[in-house]
């Protein structure tokens, strides 16, 4: 089969329809593993921020996880806060700067293990912040240990035979918990395992930021992200593994949208 | 700080030494609750109105549960040197003889003690102090508000010592009464004025604005 030359732009008349990276990322380079879903999710958030005209009107509050290294490459005002505390830090900043889009970036270990109190209380207070949860059901940064969101049967470095409900407890389905609270405006779960899901997730993130700017309350956009390294599967198998494991416990779609409720 | 000196003499017991200027230091002793605290706070607020320097401290622990309640008030013309826990004082108001040990043991000899008449007999060692007895509860009862006995004592203390103006004491009391208890203001005012009217100012007045004699 013939191979097309792809080392430079085409000479025939054409439009560039997609760039390597979103403009709010300073570089394409990062050190995350092959097949990781997090860079894709971060790309979506940055693209949405730009689309909504929030590039010079946003602050990111970043938790602890592999995604944290993006504090060096995301060209937005940022702070990397203590593990689990992002919704609290975001609360303080948002209350003092209500005009700014304040968003948190946390993994499932950060949000549902260490920081469960912070996300739930931020929701209870109805803080106008947008919380992005990158859920891969594992502590990726430390090499693949169980989080509160690891699913039943999931093998991790400290659930070698798979997470056993009787021994390790049940996974925390944070989206449902947050959605059940009156302080949340928008709760949805997306995924980056294929192009269609990515496009859908972009719309969810967009709504998440819109509800914040409409001052409707807290929005939580959970994004299932592949972590083949932490799951001990080949990079190319991450997407399928994710939907067969996490995908069953964490179904995709909108869980709550206060705008829809208000129209009804 | 603007602090117009009030030249009015203030009567008190023997002054504490080492403070530079004279300070009126007072314990208010009784059984837990707001009566004692209200006397202390009214005195302190009134003194502020009279442009004095003031400290008001309580001894905490039992006062919310009906136990001992001791209030401390210090009034002076200059920034105060007194400690928030007074090792000793020169005057006292006694609403009860219960829990008196904490106060009595800390009175300097020759202190001025204003005591509710019915408890005065139960206060030990009064021969070394200047005791003034006042039937505050009887006066308050006659006015139709027995609970205002503390206010009678407040009025009497103010009049006896000249520590604060009577009008300042009334205003200070009124501003502390919560809105849902406005009806008590009038009764309290009558009690303060009745207390003031029931005594004659003491002869052994000391000028708070005078520098302490070494």
């Amino acid at each position, binding site marked *: 089969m013939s191979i097309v030359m792809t080392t430079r732009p085409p000479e025939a*008349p*054409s439009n560039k329809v997609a760039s390597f990276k979103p403009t709010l990322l300073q570089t394409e380079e990062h050190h995350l593993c092959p097949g990781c879903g997090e860079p894709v999710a971060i790309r979506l958030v940055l693209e949405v921020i730009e689309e909504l005209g929030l590039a010079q009107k946003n602050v990111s509050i970043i938790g602890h996880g592999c995604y944290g290294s993006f504090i060096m490459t995301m060209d937005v005002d940022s702070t990397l806060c203590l593990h689990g505390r992002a919704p609290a830090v975001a609360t303080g900043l948002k209350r003092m700067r209500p005009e700014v889009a304040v968003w948190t970036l946390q993994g499932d270990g950060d949000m549902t293990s260490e920081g469960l109190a912070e996300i739930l209380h931020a929701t209870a207070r109805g803080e106008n912040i947008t919380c992005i949860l990158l859920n891969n059901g594992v502590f990726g940064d430390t090499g693949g240990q169980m989080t509160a969101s690891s699913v039943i049967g999931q093998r991790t470095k400290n659930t070698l035979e798979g997470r056993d409900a009787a021994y390790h407890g049940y996974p925390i389905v944070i989206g449902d918990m947050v959605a059940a609270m009156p302080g949340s405006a928008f709760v949805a779960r997306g995924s980056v395992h294929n192009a269609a899901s990515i496009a859908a997730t972009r719309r969810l993130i967009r709504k998440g930021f819109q509800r914040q700017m409409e001052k409707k309350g807290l929005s939580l956009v959970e994004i299932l992200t592949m972590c083949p390294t932490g799951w001990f599967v080949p990079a190319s198998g991450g997407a399928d593994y994710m939907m067969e494991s996490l995908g069953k416990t964490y179904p995709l779609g909108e869980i709550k949208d206060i705008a829809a409720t208000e129209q009804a | 700080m603007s602090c117009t000196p009030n030249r009015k003499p203030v009567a008190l017991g023997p002054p504490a030494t080492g403070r530079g200027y004279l300070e009126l230091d007072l314990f208010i002793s009784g059984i837990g609750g707001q009566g004692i605290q209200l006397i202390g706070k009214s005195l302190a607020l009134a003194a502020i109105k009279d442009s004095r320097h003031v400290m008001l401290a309580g001894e905490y622990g039992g006062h919310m549960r009906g136990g001992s309640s001791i209030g401390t008030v210090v009034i002076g013309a200059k920034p105060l040197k007194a400690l928030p826990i007074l090792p000793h004082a020169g005057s006292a108001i006694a609403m009860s003889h219960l829990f008196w040990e904490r106060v009595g043991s800390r009175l300097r000899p020759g202190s001025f003690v204003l005591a509710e008449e019915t408890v005065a007999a139960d206060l030990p060692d009064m021969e070394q102090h200047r005791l003034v007895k006042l039937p505050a509860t009887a006066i308050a009862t006659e006015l139709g508000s027995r609970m205002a006995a503390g206010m009678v004592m407040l009025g009497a203390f103010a009049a006896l010592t000249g520590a604060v103006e009577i009008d300042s004491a009334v205003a200070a009391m009124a501003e502390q009464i919560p809105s849902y208890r406005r009806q008590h203001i009038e009764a309290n005012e009558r009690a303060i004025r009745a207390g003031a009217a029931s005594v004659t100012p003491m002869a052994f007045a000391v000028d708070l604005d005078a520098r302490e004699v070494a």
Partner: protein
Amino acid sequence: MRQVTRGTLVIDADRCKGCELCIVACPPRVLTMSRTGNATGYLYPELAPGCTGCTACQQVCPDFVFEVYKYHEPIVSGSDAERMQ
């Protein structure tokens, strides 16, 4: 065989980490993995004629190695000879 190519890519192959997510994401199935490694030893995607410029590869790529172009006029068959290697 007549082949319509509506778009094309620039692939920053040396930054590719070889995860292969783009291979399955590509609707016209015109991406295949290379046989030899890039600068860091990873296999990387190569493009065959028939790209539609849909951006699916670019969207799924965690390493931002794709840039996507759409031709003003589709290229038919092998007429894009100058871009062949």
